[in-house]
């Protein structure tokens, strides 16, 4: 599972945030047959053609992952960069495979292409309701089912620290702590890290690879100059 549903923010804050993910129906009762892994590999290979912001395999991780140094010099080494090839080559078991897009055109084009591929996998779009609706319309697909997020109860639009919640909830499993998001916000404000560096630091904690660094950079730029 990717737990993509409850990202905090209003619809306009998802302007550059489309998660398109595929998964097979695993229960025996569903009676689905065929090689789900092969279909998911194709899904992800096609996704990589449409300039995603991230690719993620819920089992093995995303395009930005924590590293493990073998020598003390690793402490002074350069940080790793997004590595899509590692995600594509590491897929070993069918599960939830996600592609994150930061452009409407790319997301919609990918959805249209996936419809044409007719892989037989369940495909979901996690974004604003209108973003998903428009993507379906562009591809000529009627929506099958919809899961509304009713938002975090009692967390209002003017809650202090809402930008930390916006950043933190981009990992739907809660692996990205609000404290780290706040620390990164402070680092950007103090010019100790760029928004890009801060976004990539946070992305390494999202083990499904669905953290959207483009949206995070935009939020951090707002934080830097005090836009609420």
């Amino acid at each position, binding site marked *: 599972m990717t737990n993509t549903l409850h990202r905090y923010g209003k619809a306009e804050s998802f302007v550059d945030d489309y998660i398109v993910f595929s998964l097979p129906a695993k229960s025996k009762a569903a009676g689905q047959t065929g090689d789900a892994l092969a279909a998911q590999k194709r899904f992800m290979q096609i996704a990589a053609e449409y300039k995603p912001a991230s690719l993620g395999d819920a089992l093995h991780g995303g395009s930005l992952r924590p590293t493990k140094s073998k020598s003390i010099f690793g402490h002074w080494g350069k940080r790793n960069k997004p590595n899509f090839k590692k995600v594509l080559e590491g897929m070993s078991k069918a599960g939830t495979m996600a592609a994150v897009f930061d452009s409407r055109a790319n997301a919609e084009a990918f959805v249209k292409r996936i419809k044409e591929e007719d892989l037989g996998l369940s495909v979901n779009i996690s974004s604003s309701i209108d973003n998903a609706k428009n993507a379906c319309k562009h591809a000529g697909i009627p929506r099958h089912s919809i899961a509304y*997020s009713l938002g975090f109860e009692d967390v209002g639009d003017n809650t202090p620290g809402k930008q930390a919640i916006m950043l933190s909830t981009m990992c739907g499993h809660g692996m990205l702590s609000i404290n780290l998001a706040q620390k990164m916000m402070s680092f950007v404000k103090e010019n100790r890290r760029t928004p890009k560096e801060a976004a990539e630091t946070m992305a*390494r904690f999202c083990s499904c690879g669905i953290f959207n660094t483009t949206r995070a950079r935009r939020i951090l730029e707002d934080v830097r100059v005090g836009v609420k």
Partner: protein
Amino acid sequence: MKINPAKCVACGNCTYVCPMGAIYIDPLLQRATINRDECVECYACYNGLSKEVLPPSTVRFVRRTLANFRVRFEPEPDVCPTTAFEPDQLEWPRVVRRAFSDPRVPHESTGVSGRGTEEVKTNDVTDRVGIGEVGFTIELGRPGIGARFRDFQEMSRALAKAGVSFEKNNPISTLMTDVTTGDIRTDILNEKVMSAIIEIKVPVARTEEIMRIIWEVEKRIPTQVVIGVGVRCDADGEETMVLPILEKLGYNPQRAKTNIGLGRKVIRDLTNAAPISADKGAQPKEMVTA
């Protein structure tokens, strides 16, 4: 999870990355320490921090020396500079914390990594939520608060009292001793998890009633609730049955997970499919080969 005191240099990085805020630098020990009651065994520290192998005693000496000059040793914020975290051998009932909190650990009851089930994500294949039905996912614990099973029991008992049935493959349902009362096994009631999801399905007509039950329980439990409402769209892809009810109740949904209906009973056989250009496909904006 445990922190090896022989390796920890008390840099403090891990105190920020713990989603529960359960790690602190003990002023007497001068080492990072875990509040075990608050720790949910999510492994965000162990899995999320990059691992480095600086020599602990040297780092401590450097830190002490620099501190005299009011200069701070500051490793990258997402590294443990001495690889001090070590997984603990978890036993029952503590092991349920990890099963519900670490997304990479498949839950025994569902075989699926995570805290819930496939919900409407595979509805195009399973037909789990049909026309005229509503699937509720009631998640407790996010963002960054956590929840104990006694909180889930408070919610499940209230829902059971209303005569709803719980999704049988959901991990919380499997820990109930009686699904007709919503009782959860007593030996785990005090265990804390990052979050978990109670899943139920009711006719559309009961939507408002269920929402009011959730609101009532929310007032009594010391955690956060976030609700997902899954419904089937009509043949034109529209959903006009549940959204008006939610709006009447004061909600203005902004975000959703939309199943676009491409799932089939038989997955396409790709044996003779044209290959995707790997070179073209594997070159993102900032591609590197590690």
